[in-house]
């Protein structure tokens, strides 16, 4: 892992709420190499966004608490930095784009103001330089007539255009790592495809690494190098994208892939779903979190939570059972 850009170990994030402690992220470890695209998939509430926000120090504390962990980015631990130090990292080194472009831009500031801000703050550009750069950026993300649109307000842009603006903002200081938190979820399908393509182009042009959070396995297949599957605050499987689709080795991944609608599915068959519901994160985890819904479950699963076990080269799964044979490991 010599060229690893970000190395996260044993990250645990909890929220202390009036109802009790929410165990949102329960000791995840992963790495991102320079220029690589890592996808994090999982259903809503499995801790994808919270783990990323923990890295950037965007989790409100209290009620949140980074209980343990390290996140080594370029030889320094992000989780130990002060708020002032993090302000230099955010936007400059690591950028984040969010799910809903309709609410992620400040409605009362012009797009130009919002775009030039980080240029002036992080790169110390003058207003004129920043505006020139902003025009370039908007052009880069495919917004027509960028010079004129700098003076427009967010409500004068469509959803897809706003997401392009958000991407332009995120890329303004050419970060080494872009965290994209479900950037296509709020957009319609044709726009989604455009945004995915745009990000793929920009990644190649700017040599940046991307962490792409999504629950759309179709998007993952198209652009990720490596995939992390999360469930209830744990990483349950980690694999190169091809391996994951060819030989999923965690029951949850298996179930997720089986639940994908397929064009060639017979019409009289029902779409498969996963029985049961995700575990209540208010209860301190005990045993494998997927055990109650798992079709391969064995007695051991209910008492002891498996850690990631290497099942193949660059492919690990947190399961006591070999899903191909059904035999315990």
């Amino acid at each position, binding site marked *: 892992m010599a060229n690893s850009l970000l190395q996260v170990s044993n990250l645990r994030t909890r929220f202390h709420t009036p109802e009790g402690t929410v165990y949102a992220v329960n000791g995840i470890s992963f790495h991102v190499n320079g220029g690589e695209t890592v996808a994090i998939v999982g259903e809503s509430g499995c801790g994808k966004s919270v783990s990323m926000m923990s890295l950037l120090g965007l989790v409100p504390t209290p009620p949140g608490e980074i209980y343990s962990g390290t996140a080594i980015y370029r030889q320094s631990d992000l989780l130990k930095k002060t708020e002032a130090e993090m302000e230099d990292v955010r*936007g400059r080194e690591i950028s*984040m784009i969010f799910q809903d472009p309709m609410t*992620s831009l400040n409605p*009362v500031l012009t797009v130009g103001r919002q775009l030039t801000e*980080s240029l002036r*703050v992080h790169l110390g550009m003058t207003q004129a330089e920043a505006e020139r750069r902003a025009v370039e950026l908007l052009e880069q993300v495919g917004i*027509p*007539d960028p010079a004129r649109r700098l003076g427009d307000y967010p409500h*004068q842009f469509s959803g897809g255009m706003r997401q392009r603006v958000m991407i332009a903002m995120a890329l303004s200081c050419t970060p080494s790592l872009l965290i994209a938190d479900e950037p296509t979820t709020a957009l319609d399908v044709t726009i989604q495809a455009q945004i995915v393509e745009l990000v793929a182009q920009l990644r190649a042009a700017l040599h940046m690494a991307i962490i792409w959070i999504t629950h759309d396995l179709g998007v993952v297949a198209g652009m990720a190098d490596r995939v992390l599957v999360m469930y209830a605050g744990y990483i349950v499987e980690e694999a190169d994208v091809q391996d994951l689709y060819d030989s999923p080795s965690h029951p949850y991944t298996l179930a997720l892939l089986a639940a994908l609608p397929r064009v060639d599915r017979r019409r009289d068959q029902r779409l498969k779903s996963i029985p049961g519901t995700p575990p209540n994160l208010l209860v301190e985890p005990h045993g494998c979190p997927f055990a109650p819904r798992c079709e391969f479950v064995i007695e051991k699963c209910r008492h002891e939570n498996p850690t990631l076990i290497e099942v193949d080269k660059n492919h690990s799964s947190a399961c006591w059972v070999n899903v191909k044979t059904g035999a315990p490991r």
Partner: protein
Amino acid sequence: MTAQTSSLPQLVDDLSTPPLSLSRLVWLRFRRHKMAVFGGILLILLVLYSFGGAFVYTEKYANFNDTSQRLLPPSLEHPFGTDSIGRDILARTIYGGQISLFIGLVAVLIETILGIIVGALAGYYGGWVDAILMRITEALLNIPTIFLLLVMAKFFGGKIPEIEFAGRSFSGSVVVIVVIIGITSWMYLARIVRAEFLSLKEREFILAARATGTSNIEIIFLHILPNTIAPIIVSSTLSVANAILAEAYISFLGLGVQEPTATWGNMLDKSAKYLDSAPWLWFFPGMLILLTTLGINFVGDGLRDALDPRSRTV
């Protein structure tokens, strides 16, 4: 792709009228509010009266007393009559108007700055900052304002010497009154600003701003504050009327701006003894205070409707 994008702006120009800017939209809505326009015109006339009148009468004339001319009813020579020591009331309402309007505006400026700072810090940071600032705010709200004003006027009054400004001298009490009105009236605004900040800081665009490395101070003043401008404008406008009234009643009780500097309020003070015998003494300054506060309240109402983000009519 390129052929498409180059023709797109052209197409947009053809299809749509340019969107209205916020200030233009507010003006269009404000204009439809008849009473607000009336109030606005009234205020413009009052400002013209106070500042334009200075070209007709000198300040020396306004402060010139001739006891042989005391308590004269309105006449051609003294259109508003003369007061108990023979000064021309018309000239005094002109110079008094300048001071009263000045007190109203500057006191509100102080009030707005204090209210925004306290409200913004309390709302944005929350926790113990919020707790401390809001307890102070509530404590001040629980003391009757008039009592607070009088105590402070008594305590600070007379300690500041006359000040020279733009070739004219003013009673130092003007500054005292401005400051004490400012620092006794910011609490309501602070609560409004705090409430706005509480809801705005949870919005996604604030998270997005933080994710691009924006510092807290910039988020407070450059990202959240512009979103709260509408209620602040409305509240501040209405406060100008309250500040003018506050000056009037402290001056009426003799603790406000000291003679010879005239204000509409201290002109009323001297007229209390002549309610029946010389009604012109209180009628003109009283009427001017009434018209000013009325005008400001109409404008405030108009702005409230015009700046309401839920209103979609033009």
